[in-house]
Each structure stands twice: as C-alpha cells, then as structure tokens.
C-alpha cells in the first residue's frame, strides 16, 4: 500500500511515528481510497460502529447500578428507571439501541447480498461479519434476560432448552449452561458476565472486519474491481466521512424517535412482570430481530430437526460466497438475481411476521413454505443462477457509465462483455 511512504511533518511526530506508527495508520484511514459511487447503503458500516459504541457506553453505565441476583435484578432495573439520574434515558437508549443495532445490521447484510460484497476477494470480511452477527444475537439474548422479567425468564428457558435437543449429551449441556436444574441465579450471573464480555469481542472482530476490508478495498454499486487510487476513487476523508456523518444524523433521528416517543413499542409488556418459574406467559415471543429464525424453528414439527434448521439458516450464510456461482457481483447487472433478491427480502419479512403469530393453522403453513423457500434460495437458486443467468454488460470503470452514458462503444467494453458472457456460460 502507498501508506508506507508517509512521513509526519513535525519532528515530534516523526520521532513518535518511528516508534509507534499510529500516525501512519491515521494517514491510511484518512487517505484510504474509496469508490466515488458509494451510495447511502454503504453508510451503515459507520452507523453500526456508532451503535456498538453506544451500547458499550450505556451498558457500562447501567452495570454500575444493576445487580445480577434473581432476588434483586428486577428491582434494580426499576431503581435505574425511577431513581438513578437519567437512568430512564440511559436504559431506554440501551434497550432501543439493541433494536437499532439489528436494524442497521440487517440493512448492512442485505446491502451486501444485493451488491455481491461477499464474493471473492471479500469472503473473509463476510465471514467475520457473520461471526459478529452471531455474537450480537448472543449478546442481545443474554441482555434481554438481565431485567429478570417474565419474558427474560421464559425466553432464557426456551433458548437454553434448544440445546437439550442434541442427542445423548443435550441434557448435560443444558444443566451445565444453567448451573442447576432450571434457569436460576447461577444462570443470571453468568449471563451478566458474558453479556459484558461479548461487546468487546465484537469490537475486536470489527477491527479485523475493517482490516480485512482495507486489503481489497470497498466493493461498490457497480461491483467491479477498480484501480486504487484513480479517478474512480475519492479519499475517505473528507468525502465519505461527511456522507457517513449525514446518514448517521438521519439514523439518530429515528433512534431518538423510539427512545423518546415509543420506548417500549419494541418490547413486551410481560417483561414488566417479575420472573415467575411457575407461570409461562400466554405468548412467548422473542425480540423482533430474532423472529424469522424463530419461525423457522417452529415450522419443523420435530424438535431436533427444528433446532438444526434454525442454526442452519444462519450458518448457511457462512458458505454463501461459494454457493453463489455468478462471477458478476452487483445485482444491477443480474436481471434475474435481482428479482430473486427481492423475493428473499419478502420471504424473510414474511418469516418475521409469522414468527410473531401463533404456530397453528394458516400461519404454520406459511411458515413452512417460507422456510423451504429460504433454503431453496441459497441451495438451489444461487448455484443454478450463476450458470444459467445471462448478465448485462458491466462497465470497465465507475467513471464510464457517468461520462459515456449507457452507450458502451469502446473496444474494451466489448471484450469485457464477451468475457462476462463466457463466464456466465461457464
């Protein structure tokens, strides 16, 4: 990379940088050549970093007042809400922050799916992202247990019981997870510890995620490899920084709306009832961001198979870069994939909806069809499309469609077109 040529201007800066090249790193980050056509779907990386830091800061403060003990946890959360200065604000930011975090990560993931950002040479970035996503789900689940309300308790019971589906060792694993014969105080204290730990693991993985991103550089809406730096790129600072900051501002407005005007709309009223091991609430529903996977779990009538299907739905994403056989990245040039992409979006939304509904009658039928389609998309549609789809010609550079319009009369384009067609023929 060109960064190695960098030398700080001041003498002190040079002295410091020779011993610890932090200034070189800062220079790399500001000058980092970024495709000039990045749209607003690309601003969610920055938004997600903001979400993570918000959760860490508010969580740190909440931990100063929270007590991880089954007899005191529920009261300590109410104490935060009523007595602690600005406790209500900090807790509402933290609770809604989790939802905002998932909202942003889903947009981020679906952006990647649309523009093929998971494809070679960015597979490792993608897989690191999936690991972060899994850790986010674990952190969110354990965090939801901490207030020790009815949903906390029964959510914890249902989710930890998923492991009891494993043949032979399942019972032992759940007992080990609980530290007893049911969800109880040992479970709460360990969940609190892990809930505190995981965000820092995520932070570490985010560093790797960005590091891996900075090796090949950003994908872009056109999905082609570009020369860096060239007239196809702009420096990260100030161009992308300003764009990210503006998007973050808009995102913060939505965030603030939930915190100040509808702080409990994404939660469940049952969680304001203290946990009672003898009474299960009439409807146990996970938080909205886990509903599609919950629908998949319930759509399979067999316990073990349901659990396998649910975990597979997430883990199938790990091998996505190899399931998608198309060499063209961006859906902009893949007319058929584009349609399947939107069907998948719809499919996941439908799964989310039926996940919130009782598992019976028509809802169950819809859940089964949607589950089957979800797996078909990744296991059948994507591999086959790569072979049969006739993709549109892709431009040679980002500047080209802007400067030459849609007319691609140059010799190079024709060559590219032939190459692409050959690829799509296999």
């Amino acid at each position, binding site marked *: 990379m060109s960064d190695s040529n960098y030398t700080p201007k001041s003498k002190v800066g040079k002295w410091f940088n020779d011993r610890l090249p932090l200034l070189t790193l800062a220079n790399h980050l500001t000058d980092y050549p970024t495709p000039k056509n990045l749209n607003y779907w690309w601003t969610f990386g920055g938004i997600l970093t903001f979400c993570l830091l918000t959760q860490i800061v508010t969580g740190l403060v909440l931990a100063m007042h929270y007590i991880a003990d089954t007899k005191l946890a529920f009261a300590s959360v109410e104490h935060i809400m009523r007595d602690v200065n600005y406790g209500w604000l900090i807790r509402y930011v933290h609770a809604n922050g989790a939802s905002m975090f998932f909202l942003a990560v889903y947009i981020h993931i679906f952006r990647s799916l649309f523009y093929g950002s998971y494809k070679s040479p960015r597979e490792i970035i993608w897989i690191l992202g999936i690991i972060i996503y899994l850790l986010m789900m674990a952190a969110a689940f354990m965090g939801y247990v901490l207030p020790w309300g009815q949903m906390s308790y*029964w959510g914890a*019971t*249902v989710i*930890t*019981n*998923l492991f*009891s589906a494993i043949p032979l060792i399942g019972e032992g694993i759940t*007992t*080990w*997870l*609980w*530290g*007893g*014969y*049911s969800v*109880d105080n*040992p479970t709460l204290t*360990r969940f609190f510890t892990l809930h505190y730990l995981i965000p820092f693991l995520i932070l570490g993985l985010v560093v790797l995620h960005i590091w891996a991103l900075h090796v090949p550089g950003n994908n872009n809406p056109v999905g082609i490899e570009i020369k860096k730096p060239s007239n196809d790129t702009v420096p990260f600072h100030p161009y992308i920084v300003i764009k990210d900051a503006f998007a973050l501002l808009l995102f913060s407005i939505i965030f603030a709306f939930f915190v100040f005007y509808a702080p409990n709309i994404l939660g469940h009223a049952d969680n304001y009832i203290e946990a009672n*091991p*003898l*009474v*299960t*609430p*009439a*409807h*146990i529903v996970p938080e909205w961001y886990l509903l599609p996977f919950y629908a998949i779990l*319930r759509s399979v*009538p*067999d*316990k*073990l198979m*349901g659990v396998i299907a649910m975990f597979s739905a997430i883990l199938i994403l790990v091998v996505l870069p190899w399931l998608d056989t198309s060499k063209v990245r961006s859906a902009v040039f893949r007319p058929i994939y584009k349609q399947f992409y939107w069907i998948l979006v719809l499919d996941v939304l439908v799964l989310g909806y039926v996940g919130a509904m*009782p*598992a*019976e009658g028509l809802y169950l039928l819809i859940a089964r069809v949607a589950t089957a389609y979800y797996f078909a998309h990744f296991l059948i549609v994507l591999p086959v499309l790569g072979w049969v789809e006739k993709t549109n010609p892709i431009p040679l550079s980002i500047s080209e469609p802007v400067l030459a319009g849609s007319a691609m009369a140059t010799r190079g384009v024709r060559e590219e077109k032939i190459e692409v067609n050959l690829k799509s023929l296999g």
Partner: protein
Amino acid sequence: MSEKKQNNRRDFIFTATATAGAVGVGAAVWPLIDQMNPDASVKALASTEVDISSVKPGQSITVVWRGKPVFIKRRTQEEIEKARSVSLEELKDPQKDEDRVKKPEWLVMLGICTHLGCVPLSDKGEYDGWFCPCHGSHYDTSGRIRKGPAPINMEVPQYVFLDDNTIKIG
C-alpha cells in the same frame, strides 16, 4: 550420530513436549468448565415433601422441586378411564397410564413441556389434559404427548407416598 537419528530425537522431544503441554492445558481448563455445573448448594436441594390432604378430586396443585414446577393432580374417575382407554398405537411416546402413576388417582409429573421447557396450562388442549402455550403441544390426562412438537411425555419424577397424605419428591 547420523543426521536422521538426530531428527528422530528432536521429533520425539517435540511430540513429548506438545503432549505434556496439552495435558497441562486440559487440566488447567477443566476447573474453568466444571465450575459452571450445578454447585453443592444447588444439589443439596434435592427433595421436597408435599402435604396433599387438601387436594380434592379434579384439582391440581403445583409445587416447586429443584426450581422446577411439579404438577400433583388428583384425577377424577372419568379422567383415569379416559387415560386408560387409549390404545398405545395412538401415542407418540407409547407408555401405559399404569406405568406413569403409583396410585391411579394421583398423577405426579414435572410440569415442564418436553419441547422447550415452558409450563403447560392444565385442563386445556384437545385431550383435556395440558396444553403448552409456547409452541402448541397437547397432553392427555396422563400427561402424555398427543399432538404438537414435544417429543416425549411429561416426565414423572422419583417420588414415594410417605403416608396417605404426604408425597416425597426426589
């Protein structure tokens, strides 16, 4: 000494070191894993005695044993007959009602759905036994799974009748 022999000696030392290291790491990690298993204070709460003298026919009480709900149901004659008239072929987890109770009138079982651990509601569901609201499992008047995702019947814990009015669970 030939060079080959030297290499073999070195290989042996590497393998021995790695093995000793692995055993050492395993020994160091095990306490960190095992500390999560139920501790002595949890294990100490192993049994519960229940006075059942005030339970009338058709009534059911719920008691806590090892942090889990236990249903103690005094069944009516009708409910007993209903449970016993079912043929075993109809059952997902075939088990005779006679094998699930010590006295026909008293059904004692863990009040935990075998699907994902919710507490089923009594006198509900299509078989007039229990119904789990979480994922829709139906149990009959013997606590056997009849319909829904739960794989097996509700579990019967170890218990004894100390006298006519007292049950000791565990």
